[in-house]
C-alpha cells in the first residue's frame, strides 16, 4: 500500500495493539479468580522512556490503572485453557511469580488470536512489532514524527517533489548549479536517483518556493528528526555497517569490485581505498543521513527503484528486512533456474 504523504489526521492515536478486556482478581489468598466487572482496555505502546509498556485502563473513567514496563522475553501473554466460562488470558512473568489475568470483553472472538500474537510480538521484539503495526496503520498517527508532514501540503508540494528534495538534488541546490558538482550529474548519481534527479531538473524551477517557505520547510524536515519521546528507537545504519564488521569483507576481490562502481570518481579503485572510505566521517555522515531519511518513512518510492518492497521505507529495520527478503528471493529464483537447467527443458538452443 502506498504511503500517503499527507495523512488525514485521525482523531485518536491508535496503539500498536489494543483490545477491550477486563481484569480478574485473585480472591484473598486462594487460587480462585473473580472477574472485575469494569469495562477496560488493554493496550501496549512505547513509553517516553523508549521502553515497551503494557497498560490497562478503565474505559469509563479513562484512568490508567496498570502501567507495566516489559523487557524483551520477560513475560508472555497466554490463553488460560482451564477457564471455560470466558476467554481468559494471562500475562505471565517468567522471572517472577507475578501473574495478571484478563478476560476479553469484545463480543466477537475473531480478533483474539491476532491480538495475543501482537502482544507477544511487542514483548519479545518491540522494534519488529512496532514496525509491523506502523505498516498496518499507515494512515498516519498523531504523535508520530510525521505529523509535521501535514504542514508540507501548505507548500503545494507533491510526493514527487518532496522526494527530489529528500534526494538532495532537488530544491536545495537549484538545477543550474548542480551541474558544477560531479556528484549530482545523472551518470554518476545512483540508478535510483538519476531518474528522479533528472526530473528535478525540470520540475525544480516550478517549485517556486520562496526563501521563507524554504526556511519553514527546512524546519519541518529538521523537525522530522525531533524524535525524543516520539521516535521509535529504530536501529542506525552506523551500527550495522561498522568498519570492523565490513572491513574484512573488502579484502574479498569479488565484493570489492561490486562496490567500486559506487565510489566517487576520483577515488582509486583499491581495497585499501575502500577501507579508508568506510572509515571516513563522510561515510558515517551518509549512513546517518540515510538512517534518518529511512526513519522519516518517506523513501518508499525511491527504494522500490532498488527493487525493494515498498515496506522498505518504513524505517531502517524494515529497509534491512526488505534487502534480506530480496536476497532470499534471488537465491530461490537462482535455484529454480538451476533446477530448470538440469531438467533438460532447454532443448531448443537459440
Amino acid at each position, binding site marked *: 500500500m502506498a504511503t500517503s504523504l499527507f495523512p488525514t489526521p485521525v482523531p485518536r492515536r491508535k496503539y500498536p495493539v489494543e483490545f477491550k478486556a477486563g481484569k480478574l482478581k485473585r480472591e484473598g489468598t486462594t487460587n480462585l479468580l473473580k472477574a472485575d466487572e469494569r469495562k477496560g482496555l488493554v493496550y501496549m505502546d512505547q513509553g517516553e*522512556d*523508549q521502553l515497551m509498556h503494557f497498560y490497562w485502563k478503565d474505559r469509563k473513567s479513562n484512568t490508567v490503572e496498570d502501567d507495566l514496563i516489559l523487557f524483551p522475553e520477560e513475560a508472555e501473554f497466554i490463553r488460560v485453557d482451564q477457564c471455560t466460562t470466558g476467554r481468559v488470558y494471562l500475562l505471565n512473568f517468567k522471572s517472577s511469580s507475578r501473574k495478571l489475568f484478563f478476560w476479553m470483553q469484545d463480543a466477537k472472538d475473531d480478533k483474539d488470536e491476532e491480538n495475543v500474537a501482537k502482544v507477544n510480538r511487542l514483548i519479545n521484539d518491540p522494534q519488529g512489532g512496532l514496525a509491523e503495526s506502523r505498516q498496518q496503520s499507515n494512515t498516519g498517527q498523531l504523535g508520530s514524527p510525521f505529523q509535521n508532514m501535514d504542514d508540507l501540503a501548505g507548500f503545494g508540494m507533491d510526493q514527487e517533489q518532496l522526494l527530489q*528534495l529528500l*534526494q*538532495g538534488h532537488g530544491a*536545495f*541546490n*537549484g538545477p543550474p*548549479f*548542480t551541474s*558544477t*558538482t*560531479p*556528484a*549530482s550529474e545523472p551518470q554518476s*548519481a*545512483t540508478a535510483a536517483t538519476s531518474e528522479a534527479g533528472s526530473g528535478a531538473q525540470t520540475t525544480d524551477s516550478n517549485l517556486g*518556493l*520562496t*526563501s521563507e517557505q*524554504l*526556511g519553514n520547510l527546512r*524546519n519541518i524536515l*529538521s*523537525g522530522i*528528526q*525531533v524524535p*525524543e519521546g516520539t521516535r521509535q*528507537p*529504530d*536501529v542506525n*545504519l*552506523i551500527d*550495522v*555497517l561498522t568498519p570492523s564488521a*565490513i572491513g574484512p*569483507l573488502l579484502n574479498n576481490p569479488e565484493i570489492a569490485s*561490486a*562496490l567500486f562502481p*559506487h565510489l*566517487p570518481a576520483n*577515488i582509486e579503485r583499491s581495497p585499501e581505498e575502500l577501507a579508508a572510505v568506510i572509515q*571516513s566521517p*563522510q561515510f*558515517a*555522515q*551518509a549512513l*546517518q543521513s*540515510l538512517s*534518518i*531519511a529511512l526513519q522519516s518513512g518517506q523513501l518508499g518510492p*525511491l527504494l522500490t527503484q532498488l527493487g525493494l518492497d515498498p515496506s522498505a521505507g518504513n524505517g531502517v*529495520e524494515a529497509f*534491512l528486512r526488505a*534487502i534480506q527478503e*530480496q*536476497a*532470499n528471493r*534471488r*537465491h530461490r529464483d537462482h535455484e529454480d533456474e538451476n533446477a530448470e537447467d538440469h531438467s533438460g527443458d532447454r532443448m531448443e538452443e537459440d
Partner: protein
Amino acid sequence: MSDTGQWCLIESDPGVFTELIGAFNVRGTQVEEVWSLDEQTLEDLKPVYGLIFLFKWQGGNDSSRLHPEADLSVDENVYFAKQVINNACATQAILSILLNCPMIDLGADLENFKDFTRLFDPYNKGLAITNSELIRGVHNSFARSDPFFLDQTDQSSSEKEDIFHFISYVPVQGALYELDGLSNGPVNLGPCTEDDWLEKVRPVIQERMSRYTSAEIRFNLLALIKNREDVYQARIGEIEGRMLRSNNSGELMQLREGMEQLLQRIELEKVKFKRYERENSLRKHNFVQFIYNILRILAERGELQARIEYARKEMSKRIKDRAEKKKGEGSKN
C-alpha cells in the same frame, strides 16, 4: 519579490572553505582552523586576512548588542552586507573578508561583483550576494548529497538541526571591524594596524569564547590566511638569496636546515590539499547505492541478521545511557 534562490547548508570545515574560495577563482589563500589564540599560533598563521568565528546560533540577539557603544554607521570603506538568508552565512562570512581585503587577488568574477555592488546599501549588498548565480553556484556545489545535516558524533543533541552563525573579523583601513550579517552595520572595534590587529581581536574573541563555553555552545574559529605554500616558497626564495650572499659555513648550514624544513612543510601542505580534495569528493558523493550494495552482499552471505541484532543492542544501550544521563540531570535540579 526577488528570487533569493536556494542555498544548501555547507559544512564548516577548512577543506570546504579552502576549496570554496578557490572555486570563486580567488588565488593564493586558504582557510585554517585556529585551535589556540596564543601569540605563537597566530604568528605562525601570518599573514592573516581575517578571522571567522562560528557558533551555534541561539536566535534573536544580533551581535551588535554585545557592543552597545559601538559605532554602527556605515563606513563606505567597509564592505558590509546584511545576511538575507540563513544558509548563505558561511559564504557570506568568507566574502566579508575577501571583499574587504585589498591584498587578496579576487579574480575577475569577484572583482566585478565588488565593483558592481560597491554603492549598494547593506541590505541590497546582501540581496546581491544571495542572487549572484556565481556565488550561489559555488556555494551549492558543496551540497551534501542530502538535505539532512546532522552531527553524527553526538546523536542526542540532534533534536533540532543546528543553525550555525558566522561572524567575521577583519582590519579595514586602520580599524578593526566585526562583521555580522545579522547586525545593523559593521561594528567598529577601534583603531588597529595590519600588524597589531590580531592582538586587538584576541580579547574580543576570548570574550565570546568564554560566553559560549559557559553556555556549552559549540564554536570554532577559522582563519583566512595567505596560501601556505606561497608563503614557504617566498621564504625559500629569501633563503636562497642569503645563501648566495653568505660565505660563512655556519650560517650556510643554518640556512640549509631552514630550507629543508620549509620543503618539508610544503610537502605537508600538498598532502593536506590532496586530503581536502578527497574529503570534499566524499562529502558530495551520494552513497545510497554503495550502502545498499554492501547490505545486499551481507544479506546474500547470511550475515545481515547478526548485524541487525548487534545494531539493536547498540541502540538500546544508547537509549539507556541517554535515559540515565537524563535522570542524572533531573536529580541535579
